[in-house]
């Protein structure tokens, strides 16, 4: 039954081709096919996850019947199953939202399905070069999606994303090359053995780690490699912002964890403490700088983008702590942040659609005009700050616990400080939404849409609101399931941490 694994990648690619082929003939066929493919994707990912968590074992598949380490291998363990499921679920939610909110072009649905394929592939591959291929598929689809905003700003943002993202991916490829030169293999499991044989002191191995992690850090948008990200998120259409903010950086952060634990392994950290320190430093700086920059923003989507810089710092810090609590926290926050940030972008988009509010100032008194959306936005914002019992709290809690257990005091302090900064920028919005009167002369809902641009169709569908509300409910409800999740993750953790 591990035959399901290639379908996780193949099914969205086939659907993308179908949309493209049929789209020229039948304009309206894009959404139904994409929706069907997304539902299938959720079913596939759910089945695989159930199998992995049910058996407590890793599910693998040899592509084309070539035996690893020569052939390409797909591997799903507890960590990748969670990420693959997140990809499928968020994709479905964004699609439901995009039905009304758009964009509705054939190109969008094709790129959307390609992105799903790339992200799923990154989540489940067990081969380094294959990871690079999926990284590029993901990147190209994402560049194109950002550019699908019609404004000049979106084009510039996409170009910046393209150039910097490509340089990052090249560095990653360079790192893989070094590892390949050192070991002669590309399979992750095989690499972990061979790298140890070559020795962690080898210059090739160390340089490979630096290049691979730096390349992925660009894609994850850790400070100061984040420069492409705010503009890309802010200039893209709302559905696209939500989609890529929830998933692209998330899967890249997952890739960092995969590289650390499955390729270089915790032994590498033990042998080269500087590597761990470097990653922790990068993550810590990212946490603080991202939060500080978020506080300075006046545009809500840019603020959410910078918030991601900070939150991914947390996630990477959790992984780099390399202890049980840290990895559980990193995983929980990876998934939780994906949901919450996607939900926040969708809510911001919906609020823009209903009231034309795109800057912090324009959020004054929104709660009276869009109570349900405002409520969901506030819940998601507080969940992101880390108010118990939301999933945002649990993730941060585990990461902070991991920092204490690892005696990484600076990281512990940074985590606590970042919570305050997160509170600063979200509390500001919640305060404006609930406790201020709208400024005189603010355009009413209908008129506000007119000045937004052609990518923003008028009105608000039930689906849009429903998706945001469901995500808000999930963000609170998932917090209580984390303890069970840790149980299910235990076999994977034992393997990754070599307990």
């Amino acid at each position, binding site marked *: 039954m591990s035959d399901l694994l290639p379908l996780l990648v193949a099914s969205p690619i086939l659907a993308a081709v179908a949309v493209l082929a049929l789209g020229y003939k039948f304009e309206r066929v894009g959404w139904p096919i994409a929706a069907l493919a997304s539902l299938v994707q959720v079913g596939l990912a759910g089945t695989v996850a159930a199998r992995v968590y049910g058996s407590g074992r890793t599910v693998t598949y040899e592509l084309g019947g070539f035996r690893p380490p020569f052939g390409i291998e797909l591997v799903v363990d507890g960590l990748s199953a969670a990420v693959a499921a997140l990809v499928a679920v968020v994709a479905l939610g964004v699609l439901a939202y995009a039905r009304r909110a758009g964009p509705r072009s054939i190109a969008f649905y094709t790129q959307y399905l390609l992105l799903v394929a790339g992200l799923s592939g990154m989540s489940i591959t067990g081969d380094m070069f294959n990871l690079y291929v999926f990284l590029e598929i993901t990147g190209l689809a994402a560049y194109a999606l950002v550019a699908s905003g019609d404004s000049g700003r979106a084009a510039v943002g996409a170009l910046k994303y393209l150039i*910097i993202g490509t340089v*990052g991916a090249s560095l990653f490829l360079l790192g893989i090359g070094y590892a390949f030169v050192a070991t002669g293999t590309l399979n992750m499991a095989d690499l972990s053995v061979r790298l140890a044989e070559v020795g962690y002191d080898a210059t090739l191995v160390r340089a490979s780690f630096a290049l691979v992690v730096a390349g992925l850090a660009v894609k994850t948008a850790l400070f100061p490699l984040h420069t492409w990200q705010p503009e890309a998120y802010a200039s893209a259409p709302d559905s696209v912002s939500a989609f890529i903010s929830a998933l692209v950086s998330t899967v890249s952060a997952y890739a960092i964890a995969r590289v650390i634990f499955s390729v270089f392994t915790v032994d590498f950290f033990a042998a080269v403490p500087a590597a761990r320190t470097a990653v922790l430093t990068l993550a810590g700086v990212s946490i603080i700088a991202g939060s500080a920059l978020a506080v300075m*923003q006046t545009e809500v989507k840019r603020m959410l983008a910078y918030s991601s810089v900070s939150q991914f710092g947390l996630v990477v810090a959790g992984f780099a702590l390399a202890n049980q609590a840290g990895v559980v926290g990193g995983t929980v926050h990876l998934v939780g942040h994906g949901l919450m940030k996607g939900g926040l972008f969708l809510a911001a988009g919906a609020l823009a659609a209903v009231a034309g509010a795109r800057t912090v100032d324009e959020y004054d008194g929104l709660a009276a005009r869009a109570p349900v959306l405002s409520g969901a936005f506030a819940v998601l914002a507080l969940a992101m700050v880390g108010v118990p019992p939301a999933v945002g709290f649990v993730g941060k809690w585990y990461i902070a616990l991991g920092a204490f257990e690892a005696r990484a005091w600076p990281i512990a302090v940074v985590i606590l400080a970042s919570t305050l900064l997160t509170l600063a920028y979200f509390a500001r919005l919640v305060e404006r939404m609930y406790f201020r009167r709208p400024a005189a002369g603010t355009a009413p809902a209908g008129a506000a849409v007119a000045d937004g641009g052609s990518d923003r169709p008028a009105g608000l569908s039930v689906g849009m609101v429903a998706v945001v509300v469901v995500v808000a409910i999930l963000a609170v409800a998932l917090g209580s399931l984390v303890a069970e999740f840790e149980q299910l993750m235990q076999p994977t953790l034992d393997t990754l941490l070599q307990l």
Partner: protein
Amino acid sequence: MAVDALAAVPPFVYVLAAALAVPLVSRRVGHALGMVATLAVVAVSALAPAGAYVQVGLFGFETVLFNVDAFARLMGLIFGFIGAAAVLYSYASRADNVQTAYALSYVGTSVGAVFAGDWLTLVFFWELMAVTSTALVWHYGGRAVRAGFRYALLHGVGGSLVLAAIVWYYVDAGSFLFSAAPEGLAAGGEIAAVLAAIGIGVNVGFIGLHAWLPDTYPRPHVAASVFLCVYTTKTGVYAMYRAFPEGHLWIAYMGGAMAVFGASMALLQNDMRRLLSYHIQSQVGYMIAGVGIGTALATAGAFGHVFNHILYKSLLFMTVGVIIFRTGEENLKYVGGLARAMPITAAAFVVAALSIAGFPGFNGFVSKGMVIAAAHKKHIDALWWLLMIGGVGTFLSFIKLGYYAFFHGEYDGSVSDANRGQQVAMVTVAALCVLYGLFPDALFAILPDAADLDYVTYTFDHVAEGLALAAAGAIGFVLLKKPLGKVGRVPDVDAVYNPAVFYGTRALVRGVTDSYAAVDRGVGRLSAAAVRAAGNPEAALRRAGVEPDAPTTDGPAGPSNLSAGIGTSVLILTVVVTIAVAVLVFV
């Protein structure tokens, strides 16, 4: 059968039960109950065979609530007997029921402490003893309250030190039982030994830690003083023996120094009960010296002195109490020539004074002589001299007290002698002082390991020594009488440490509150600034010297001069990768 019944209940239970009952019944019945309970302690102490009884788990540890051996038996006998005498004296001195109830609770906890078979039980009663005695002092009100507070503080500190030493002992010996380590608390190591010595030193009045004694004991009701002078210090001596059964030279020297210091300070006092309080320190010094020397003779002498001292010191407080009771005067300067008006009291005082001074024929001579002889036998000459000088000082100050109170001058106004109850209490105790002085074998019969002692009380040397001390005291008094008359109130160490503690504590409290307030202000300002900055980031940026761009047509941009262009981004990326590779490869 009868023995089983005796041993089934620890004797402190009787006394504490009486303490609970006393406030509920009439004065007469209440005090009778108190006497019955304390005499029951005497009976149990005399009859219960040696052994460990009532082994229970206290706070989850193995403990022995009722442990009988020669030392505990001796303490129980004298504590019970003098408790009964003091209750009778209280009744005669118009003490109210509540005070006697406090006094009985104090007696009960002391009895509990000396019959403890393990350190946990002992320290439990030790702390309770501090509480009950503080309550007894406080009950009198007035100036006794502040003194009681100082007393409680000091004993709280001392009790904590003892507790620390006991914890140390437990870690080392794995048990709280006395039987776990024959070398006592000193088994816990040097730190435990020092903690124990200082902690117990508070109770026995080590020099420097003694100021609570003359501060507290003169202040409450005269009957309360009779109780106080007996239990705390003597339980301390007992605990000192349990902690250092083999003695320690430094403790011995401290005892000798206490003997001299206490007697000298006593000599300078005019407040009668304050003078007697300093003498407690001086006399306890002999006992501590005996415990410190650590030979069988010295230990027996120390405990014999505990026994005798309780008799004559309570008798002294009773006689002085009668003077205060009848005249209302605390100070020697305002009384005099009372021997004619109160002959029985005067006679009792003379017996007690000769006993405490160690005049041959009185009980103090017996036990003090044993300690001095032990010092002599072990050739600790400096200690021997200290103890002798202390003896001279004792004679001196009691000649002074007796002379000014009973014989010198006249007392204006009519006073009557002690009432019947007081007389019974005093005469009984005085008779015992003489009895144990004339028949030392009666004392030896209850002393621990007395059978093996190589000591004869009445030898020519010993008697000559006693008479010489008396003569030296008498001559000294004649010489010092004039200068002593001019001495006012003499400050003790508490003149330094009371203000030091007071102002030190105040400075600490001020320091803590001020720094708290400073931190509070700082956090408040920081929070306000953070809220301002978060609420209006553009203004904050402007203040920080960064000009945010004006909104563009594409939408309101953020502070875009903070965001890097494509070229800069790639440069940053290159720099980061270079640093990362450099760090990983070269570090």
